[in-house]
Structure formats: structure tokens, C-alpha cells
């Protein structure tokens, strides 16, 4: 089945490349809100499912791109392990491939690494229909360019992910979330002070005058860190972090455009219009705002950061932070090396790619 599925995809790509037909790669279709709106023939990889190899003591799992994130996570959980980057699902049908194509990383990201940090290797099909393998199943591998990590976040514009090898982590023995009342500026300061100390912080967020800090690790270490940080333990903390990750908190409801603002973590409060939720110790700030895109990007850019129109707003414009001309032109040349006919998710990331 697998070989024939691979062949089917290759045939579709060959045919599309020959006629210059745009393909819209789709897993569980849970992330269609993200990126620029595009048109193309749907190329589904949803049925390319299943875990290919998993030996818990190797801390590596290999799975097909169409494998549902929920299935993957439940298999890992049974062995006391997890995905270190704590990805958002944004829907029941979320697949591993789609998650990596979008490079979605959750609350643990600033402390434990991003989606790409956990990718060890991929098998993929490029825009000329070639089946290619990069990286592998081992932790350390510097043979050839690091294409597998480069594909993470490329939103299907370079290649179609088929099989993915991931590093996984043991689940922490215990977790506790503490809540402190403070304003946003104080929260940023506290989070960055703690992050510079050997404390087992695994998530931090500030919302409505409340700072939430999650500590993860072994029982003794977490308890002693909790005592030194202070604050009220938050009941049902797992639900809170899940709702933050899945954008189900009240902050995320309504129709106002949602911006993801990324700045150096210790950056002070930015003069942006609208409500802000601080995540990642200040490194990621969610903004609900109708402020003009150029203005948001100018403010974010001058702080050394970038802004993404994450949900809503004008999906036909530039939803991702514009690239410098020299960098954009390099992106275009790179895209051509993978997808010379320009058929893989054209325009999903940037108009020019």
C-alpha cells in the first residue's frame, strides 16, 4: 500500500508538473486558516497514515505524514513519552505532516525547542516527483545539507512530506503551574529572570493581569523551584495550557484579526493597538488588532522581531513578515531547485514562492 501510495503521489506530481497545475497539499485540513489563500487541485496525504518504527528507548519515532497527531501522542503517552515541542492541533484531524509543514510549536517551545529541533529526518517527494530521503533516525547526523529541518515550516512549497523521523522526550515526572498577579511589564521581567536561572520552567504566559508559570521535572526539583518562585498553584493546569495552545481561551474568540508577534523575549511592552497575550516568556505575543499590517510590522520590526497575520484579516495579502529583497530572491532560487514548475502550494507562504 505504501509503495503504491508513494507512486500515486509521484504520478500526480509528474502530471501536474507537466501541465503546470498547482497542487494544494492537504493532510487533515485543520490548518487551512493559516498562510495565504490559494487555489490548487487538492493533493491529499491524509490516508498515508501509521507509525513506522518506535522503540521508546531510542527516543525516536518514525511515522507517516498523514498520521494523526492525536494517535501519535497517545502512542507516545503509553510509553511515558511526548513530543517536546508540544504542538497545537487546531482540529481533530491534525496530522504530523501538516504540523511540521506549518512549524507549529506550543508553550514548551522557548524552554525545550521548536518543531524543527525535533526533526531528525524525512522522506519526501519534491516538485519533480522524485522521492528523496534526508537526515535519518539518529540524534546526530551531519551528512549532507540539513534539508529535513529546512522543510519544517516551508508549508509544502518545497516538497511533500511522506515519512518523518522525530526525536521524542520522556514525559516529566511531575508538573505544577503557579499563578501570580502582576502587570505585563513585570511578567516579562520575571519570566526572563527565571529563564536565566537553572529552574525547570517549561511554559510561561501572561493574560489579564495574571502570570502563569509551569514547572516540569522530577518531584523534588519542581517542588523546590515552586517554593522559590512562589504563587498560587493553578488547578486544572493541563486544561489551561491546552486551551492556550489550541487558542480556545476567551482571548482568542471573536472575529478580530489575530497576529503572532515574535520579538526578543525581554522586549518591553510594544505600542501596538489592541489586546495582547504574552506567551513564551515574552518571546511570542498574541495580538487581537485591526491596526494596519504595515504599522504592526514596522513596530515589531524595529524591536528586532516579525509579525504574522495568524488568523483572519486579509488572507490574499502578505500574511507573513516580508523578506528583504536579497533574501526573497534566494528563497525563489531555492524554491526552483525543489519545485521548478512552481506547482507545490504556490503562493501559500509568499506570493513569489
Amino acid at each position, binding site marked *: 500500500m505504501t509503495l503504491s501510495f508513494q507512486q500515486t503521489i509521484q504520478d500526480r506530481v509528474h502530471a501536474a508538473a507537466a501541465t503546470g497545475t498547482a497542487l494544494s497539499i492537504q493532510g487533515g485540513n485543520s490548518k487551512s486558516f493559516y498562510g495565504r489563500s490559494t487555489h490548487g487541485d487538492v493533493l491529499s496525504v491524509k490516508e498515508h497514515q501509521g507509525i513506522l518504527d518506535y522503540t521508546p528507548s531510542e527516543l525516536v519515532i518514525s511515522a507517516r505524514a498523514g498520521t494523526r497527531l492525536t494517535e501519535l501522542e497517545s502512542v507516545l503517552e503509553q510509553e511515558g513519552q511526548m513530543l517536546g515541542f508540544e504542538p497545537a492541533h487546531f482540529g481533530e484531524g491534525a496530522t504530523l505532516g501538516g504540523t511540521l509543514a506549518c512549524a507549529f510549536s506550543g508553550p514548551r517551545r522557548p524552554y525545550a525547542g521548536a518543531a524543527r529541533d525535533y526533526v531528525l529526518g524525512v522522506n519526501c517527494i519534491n516538485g519533480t516527483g522524485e522521492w528523496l530521503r534526508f537526515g535519518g*533516525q*539518529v540524534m546526530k547526523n*551531519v551528512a549532507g545539507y540539513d534539508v529535513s*529541518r529546512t522543510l519544517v515550516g516551508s508549508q509544502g512549497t518545497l516538497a511533500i512530506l511522506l515519512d518523518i523521523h522525530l526525536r521524542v522526550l520522556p514525559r516529566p515526572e511531575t508538573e505544577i503551574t503557579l499563578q501570580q498577579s502582576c502587570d505585563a511589564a513585570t511578567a516579562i521581567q520575571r519570566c526572563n529572570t527565571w529563564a536565566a536561572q537553572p529552574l525547570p520552567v517549561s511554559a510561561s504566559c501572561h493574560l489579564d493581569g495574571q502570570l502563569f508559570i509551569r514547572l516540569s521535572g522530577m518531584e*523534588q526539583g519542581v517542588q523546590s523551584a515552586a517554593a522559590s518562585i512562589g504563587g498560587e498553584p493553578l488547578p486544572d493546569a493541563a486544561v489551561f495550557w491546552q486551551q492556550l495552545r489550541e487558542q480556545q481561551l476567551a482571548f482568542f474568540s471573536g472575529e478580530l484579526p489575530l497576529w503572532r508577534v515574535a520579538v526578543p523575549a*525581554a522586549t518591553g511592552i510594544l505600542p501596538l493597538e489592541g489586546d495582547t497575550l504574552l506567551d513564551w516568556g515574552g518571546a511570542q505575543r498574541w495580538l487581537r488588532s485591526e491596526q494596519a499590517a504595515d504599522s504592526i510590522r514596522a513596530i515589531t520590526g524595529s524591536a528586532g*522581531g516579525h509579525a504574522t497575520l495568524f488568523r483572519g484579516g486579509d488572507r490574499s495579502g502578505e500574511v507573513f513578515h516580508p523578506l*528583504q529583497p536579497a533574501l526573497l530572491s534566494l528563497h525563489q532560487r531555492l524554491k526552483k*531547485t525543489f519545485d521548478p514548475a512552481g506547482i507545490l502550494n504556490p503562493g501559500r507562504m509568499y506570493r513569489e514562492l
Partner: protein
Amino acid sequence: MSRRNITTELRKHLPENCVLTHAEELRPYECDALSAYQQLPMVVVIPDTLEQVQTTLRLCAEHKVPVVARGAGTGLSGGALPLENGVLLSLAKFNRILDIDIQNRVARVQPGVTNLSISNAVAAYGLYYAPDPSSQIACSIGGNVAENAGGVHCLKYGLTTHNIQALEVLTIDGEHLSIGGQALDAPGYDLLALLTGSEGLLAIITEVTVKLLPRPEIAQVVMAAFDSVDAAGASVTEVIASGIIPAGLELLDKPAIDAVEKFIHTGYPKDAAAILLCELDGTQADVSAQIERVNQVFAAAGAIDLQVSHNEEERQRFWAGRKAAFPAMGRLSPDYYCMDGTIPRKHLARVLNQIGTLSEEYGLPICNVFHAGDGNLHPLILYDANKTGELERTEELGGKILELCVEVGGTITGEHGVGLEKINQMCVQFNTAELQQFHAIKSAFDADNLLNPGKAIPTLHRCAEFGAMHVHHGELPHPELERF
């Protein structure tokens, strides 16, 4: 272009002391730490300023002269081996730390800054830069990025690629690009990942922003001795399976222990067939709990001796033997050759046994001192370069070991890079379409193939030659092919 012409051009645009052409000035650049390969460059350029780097690149691009970048020259795969018809571009003078941002826990540094000096510069703030290749006292951060360097602690803290945030680079055309950024997850393709480990083939690194981590409250080492390599290998898997990720987990086999004990007295048990050094770090509470668990695992796996470091002095003593392992080999044998394959941990015992068999077959002793926790093998083949044919047999044996790594699902290089050394084994690990994709990526950065040509990614022609010879004679190709 002739040597005279490019030298004239370089001299016209650069200060005199930046351009070296005399044989005695070129000699120090004829090899990196893989001294088996040597080649004098056509000319060495040592710029002082970014503008001078830019000028050098522009002149080379204009005149189609290849450029090999060099940091500290500590690379182990011949990645900085000069080209006879090329410019060797040394970035050694770019050795300043530009900015330390304590609040954001990053430092901006020039490429020639040594790895260890970054940690030293931020130690007062309780921070450090995690990747610690064994050459960290000498190796430069630019070279670390080019090779995606690892080290003893990457099991827990990752490789260079996990610990940098931004790069400033120059393309072969002298164009400046900012890659990554001060904020997390920069927009566009993850070029930071692509450039890290690209071995000087895509761009010249002129600045690196590294991430700084809080120094753990405490680190302690457990030393466990085993009466068989199999038992030691199996216990590595058991430790990881127990839910602990040690900061480092290193294995020394019997020949390595013997060599080390002759060199310095570390107190490693002499009757052991293998020992493991397992470092645990974190808060005092966590480390105590982890030591207890790790000790149980080792005991259950049949450890014949277990010792825990109780203070910093003891911890350093346990590590002293590991750190002295390479120099100790140097005393045992006129030359040694260090391999760098990585395998899935579950195949450790099998691969170590097969390496032993190969060692007997070739009549060349092999010691194993390596990063067991992440399956990164460093077999050291002991040989004598003065004996006719011994280097060639050593390289052939090394090639066999790497192919064995690929066979069990691993890779030919975990952290040293392909360079020139492992270029033939790239043909074993990757097929034609994959190599073509690599070449295409290079052409997107460097259309005329001027940056470190002939390294890291083999030409298809070369693979055809290697494949043919490999199948028919089981030998590595002739050395003259390596000058492509």
C-alpha cells in the same frame, strides 16, 4: 585564473599584510586537524574587516577562483583543506564578542571567536554556551556552525543547530544576508538550519548569534564499569528507557581504558571491559534523584563497579581520563584515525562487535571512546603512516566502519562533517536524486561552484567511479580523483 593574476588583483584591493603568497607563509594552512590530507593553497587571505572579506569574495567571483573558508583549522574531516588553484580565506582575525545580551540570553560574536571563550565571557552571569566539542579551547564558532559541531553534552542540549539563533553571512557575490533573527522562528524558509553544517559550501559566516543557557546548579558523574561491552551497551539503552536524559553518557572500551591508565592515573577499574561515564546535571534535588535511579539501572545491568563523584574535583578526575583518551592513543601509536559514524543505540553492541572483527581482519587495533548516549561512535584506528600502505588500509577499514553504520540505519558522520574525508561514503548514504538536490541547493547560493568545491557533496561522476571500484575491487578510489 593564474596565481599571478588573482594575487595581483587581491594585492591591488587589500592591505599588503592580508595577502600571503610565500610558501613558508602558506605552510601553516596546508591542512586542518585531518593532517593526512595536505595541500598548499594558491594564496591565503586574512582580512581584518568585513569590507575586505567582501572584496575578496567579489574578486574571486569575478575571476572564478574557488574559496575555502577557514576558522581555527581544528576540523577533523578535511573541510578546510585548501585548493591548489584557490584562495584560502582565514577568518581568524574576526575574534571579537560583539554583544552580550543577558536579558535575552544571547551573544553576538564574530566567527573567529573560540567556542570556550563564549562560555568564559558569560560565566559571571551564570550562563554558558552549551555545545562543547572536545576542541572547544581552540575551535572557532564559525567553524562550529559550518560543521554543526556537537560534543559531550549534546545528548541533552543539542548540536550547534539547536543553540544558535541568527547568522550574518556573505554570499560568494559579496552580498550580505541576515539569516534567522533575534526573535524566535524567523519568517521564510529555515535557512539557519540549511546553513548550519553546510561546510562552507553555501556562504561565508561573518557573525553568529548564540543562545546562552543558565549553568546548571550542579553536575555529578556516575562511573559504571562492566565486564562486557555488550552489557555496557545494553545499559545505555536502559538508562534512556528509564526516562532520564543524562547531560552526557560516554563509553570507553578496554583498549581505551588501558591506554588512558598508562597515560594518567584516573582510577578507572582495570579489569573492566568497558566503562560508562554518565553525567547528570540540574538542580541539586533532581540530580540526587537521578543518581539514585541511574545507579539502580547500572546495578541491574550487571555493573561490576559503581562510583559517584561527590565534588567538582572528583567529577573532573572522572572526566580527565575521557579527555585524555585521544592524547593517550597518540602515545600508543604513531598515528591514529578518528571515525565519526552514528547508529541507532539499539545496535551498539552489534556494531562494536563487528568493528572488533574488522579490526582483526585488517590487523589494525581499534579503540572506542565515544558518545554512547546518542549513538555517536568514534572508533580510533591505530596505525603507522610510515609503514607503506598502512594509511590506505586504515582508510579502507574506516570506510567499512562507516558503511556498517549506514547499514544499521545510521549515518557516516555525527558531528565531524563529511569534508573530503567521507566524501566517498556520501555515495553510499545518498542516491543520485538526493545528491542532485544537494547540488541544486548549492547552485541557488553559489551558481559557479566556487565555495569549497569538491567537499561535502560528491559529484555523480565521483560516485560512479567509487561505486564501480567499490563493487569490483572493494577499494577506495585513487587519491588523484580527490583533487576534482
